[in-house]
């Protein structure tokens, strides 16, 4: 039997029992739905992902995109999968019915998309980029732009990209140089070089819509002078069909470590002064517009990292149950049969680390998706504002902390496979390579840590930070008196106190020490905050598991809950105590990293 994409029992426990996602149907926007439609959508996603996405994951890794006569060649399975995705209605699912959508909550859409990420994240990138690009036009475009570009994008005929990065400007978008010269109306002549554009050229559809950041001639320097443009591969004729080429030239393909199925391109715009971009919204608002959906995008990246960890976990669990190797320490009799790997304590340690990150991460990603839904649709202003604050605080954490831990999880999966895991005959090395991107893109993890300590911790006089502590305290109070969760409750309490006292102390010193010194140890602060959030999700799972345990039937339902309680114990014993070390280092303003000099390396 093939390994599932997500353990369905874990998903049901998390989505319905712990998070109570069914309550979304109380919002007027989702009133037409019920749990039945949600489950039907998730089931369609699961089947489509298993039948059309997973089977070619290894093949597309082994056959990376190539150029033939100037055209990008992808393996044909990618086109088939992407077409099936569009046909099933996933491109438009969260939109209104008039756009072909079903007003699906973000939470359910993300649950559905988690299956595609688990099955084949590089192929899934094509529709996901298109959805993101269409969202940008939907949010900021003119009525005319929406009418022209959205239907073909949501119909799967045009694809989308995000063209931000340039060869000399990756983390530092303030240095973006691509220039836009006004022609007439919303039309600008675009000239410059873009680097790393995922999905930048291919023949999957009739057209490609590059959502491009450029600087209007005369605009201010830095991020305040960036504007957002629609730069299509082909301009549209009067009938809306793609017509003449638009001066977007493919310079070359990047040859990547992983994520190979997603073609990655270097593009040159307007070499012959023949590239037109259509301004989206107001001038100089480009980065703000792009970042309008930043939380959604970053949670999406984190979910990708988490699903790769989840797959590695399920693969290595299956392997560990079936590979006989060695005997217990102290058993010196070589005539006894070898034990399955899972009998070794250290293998269980590595399985627990993976389970904790995969299942805890899935819960946090869906928890944040729920906050996005509530933040957008709750009738109560204070609820909306509070969810937005929590989302601001937790987004850098899920992006950076989980993408790092998910990579560690994939490394553990390889370790469990031993020498076999290091070969291309098993999928775990590919999962690791695919996952290695996630700490780099969508804001490198260093940038996320700086954002968390330098901005989110102090924003609105610490309101986001306080809201997070309140959430943790609510769970801690709920855990009071439940004996089964004592260990995780106590450990989360200690970690929470470490975070609280460190944050208060650092922010009090911030004005004196200045940003360079404050942020020098941001990496440790990220791990500290990430661990508190880790304890928090496992505490919440453990509380529900403890409550449900008494009435759970023997066998799998009971094992699931015991597994939750036990993983929470692992998190308490092995993971959370690291916060003490971080608190000490941060409060001491340790400068061993900052004061190291270039010449001393």
């Amino acid at each position, binding site marked *: *039997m093939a390994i599932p994409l997500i353990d369905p029992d874990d998903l049901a426990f998390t989505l319905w029992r712990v998070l109570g996602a069914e309550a979304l149907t109380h919002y007027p926007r989702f009133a037409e739905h019920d749990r039945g*439609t949600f489950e*039907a*959508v998730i089931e369609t996603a699961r089947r*489509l992902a298993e039948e059309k996405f997973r089977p070619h994951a290894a093949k597309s890794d082994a056959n990376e995109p190539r150029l033939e006569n100037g055209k990008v060649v992808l393996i044909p399975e990618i086109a088939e999968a992407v077409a099936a995705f569009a046909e099933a209605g*996933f491109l438009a699912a969260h939109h209104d019915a008039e756009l072909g959508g*079903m007003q699906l909550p973000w939470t359910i859409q993300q649950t559905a998309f988690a299956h595609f990420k688990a099955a084949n994240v590089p192929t899934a990138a094509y529709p996901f980029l298109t959805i993101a690009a269409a969202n940008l036009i939907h949010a900021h475009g003119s009525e005319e732009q929406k009418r022209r570009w959205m239907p073909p994008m949501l119909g799967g005929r045009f694809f989308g990209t995000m063209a931000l990065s340039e060869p000399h400007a990756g983390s530092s978008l303030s240095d973006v140089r691509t220039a836009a010269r006004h022609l007439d109306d919303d039309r600008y002549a675009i000239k410059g070089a873009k680097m790393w554009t995922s999905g930048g050229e291919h023949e999957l559809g009739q057209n490609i819509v590059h959502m491009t950041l450029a600087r209007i001639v005369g605009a201010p320097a830095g991020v305040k002078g960036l504007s957002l443009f629609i730069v299509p591969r082909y301009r549209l004729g009067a009938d809306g069909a793609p017509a003449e080429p638009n001066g977007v030239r493919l310079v070359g393909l990047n040859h990547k470590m992983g994520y190979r199925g997603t073609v990655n391109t270097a593009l040159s715009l307007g070499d012959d002064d023949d590239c037109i971009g259509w301004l989206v919204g107001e001038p100089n608002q480009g980065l703000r517009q792009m970042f309008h959906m930043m939380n959604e995008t970053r949670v999406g990246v984190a979910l990708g990292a988490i699903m790769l960890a989840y797959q590695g976990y399920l693969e290595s669990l299956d392997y560990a149950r079936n590979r006989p190797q060695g005997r217990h320490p102290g058993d010196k009799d070589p005539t006894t049969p070898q034990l399955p790997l899972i009998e070794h304590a250290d293998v269980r340690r590595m399985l627990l680390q993976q389970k904790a990150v995969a299942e805890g991460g899935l819960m946090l990603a869906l928890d944040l998706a729920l906050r996005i839904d509530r933040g957008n649709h709750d009738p109560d202003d204070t609820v909306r504002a509070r969810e937005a604050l929590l989302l601001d605080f937790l987004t850098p954490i899920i992006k950076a902390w989980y993408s790092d831990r998910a990579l560690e999880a994939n490394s553990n999966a390889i370790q469990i496979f031993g020498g076999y895991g290091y070969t291309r005959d098993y999928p775990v090395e590919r999962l690791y390579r695919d996952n290695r991107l996630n700490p780099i893109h969508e804001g490198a993890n260093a940038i996320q840590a700086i954002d968390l300590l330098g901005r989110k911790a102090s924003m609105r006089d610490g309101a986001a930070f306080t809201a997070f502590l309140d959430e943790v305290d609510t769970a801690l109070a709920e855990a009071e008196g439940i004996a089964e969760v004592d260990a995780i409750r106590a450990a989360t309490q200690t970690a929470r106190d470490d975070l609280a006292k460190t944050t208060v102390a650092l922010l009090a010193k911030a004005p004196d020490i200045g940003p360079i010194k404050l942020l020098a140890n941001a990496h440790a602060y990220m791990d500290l905050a990430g661990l508190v959030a880790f304890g928090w999700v496992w505490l919440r799972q453990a509380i529900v598991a403890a409550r449900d345990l008494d009435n759970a*039937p023997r066998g*799998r339902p009971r094992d699931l809950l015991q597994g939750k309680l036990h993983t929470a114990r692992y998190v308490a014993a092995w993971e959370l105590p690291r916060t003490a070390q971080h608190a000490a280092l941060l409060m001491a303003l340790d400068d061993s990293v900052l004061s190291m000099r270039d010449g001393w390396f």
Partner: protein
Amino acid sequence: MKVLVPVKRVIDYNVKVRVKADQTGVELANVKMSMNPFDEIAIEEAIRMKEAGKAEEVIAVSIGPQQAQETIRTALAMGADRGVHVLHDGVVEPLAVAKMLKAIVEKEGPTVVILGKQAIDDDCNQTGQMLSALLGWSQATFASKIEVGDGELTVTREVDAGLETIKVKTPAIVTTDLRLNEPRYASLPNIMKAKKKPIEAMSPADLGVDPTPRLATLKVVEPAKRAGGVKVADVAELVSKLKNEAKVI
């Protein structure tokens, strides 16, 4: 013409089935259930007939507990027009199902009934044949291809010797085999449309059928575990083992 498709709610094909501790049956509590895969093929075929202009209406029927409505919804989301749900908790045997289907057929007047060749839970492979006998209709079982003609169907059947093509007069019963088609996914817009399609509810009594099982299950046990294999050194050892240990020659 109308096409009637009975759909059964069964343990999902991905679930590892476990026998209950008291050996009275298999564990169903908290187990994922879905539509019998052969019935999905039947629904798909009926929808294709409709799309090709050969059928006007596709009716999905399920006999089972309240949750069997979810199975009907799945059929409606694939493209069936309406549902009939016969509410019944507990075991139903093929003969009782066939009798209830006969009553529904007499009420609805379909030209073709397409069933799965078997359900993957009890593997009976009986309901279609029994229904055909009760109605006195022609039957074409194990279909891997169906062509709708004028007052007849041309059906290719998967038989032990290969493929057999037969013509049957309508009204007729067809049962599906695995290669008939590849069932579609329920698209998201169709999942929403399915919510508005009607499902008529009834009971076995409404159909004048007593569904009480005629068979008694004595016990249900796990299949015997396969013993590990052994390597033999040569033919002589193999022959000796077959003779003395396996005692098959």
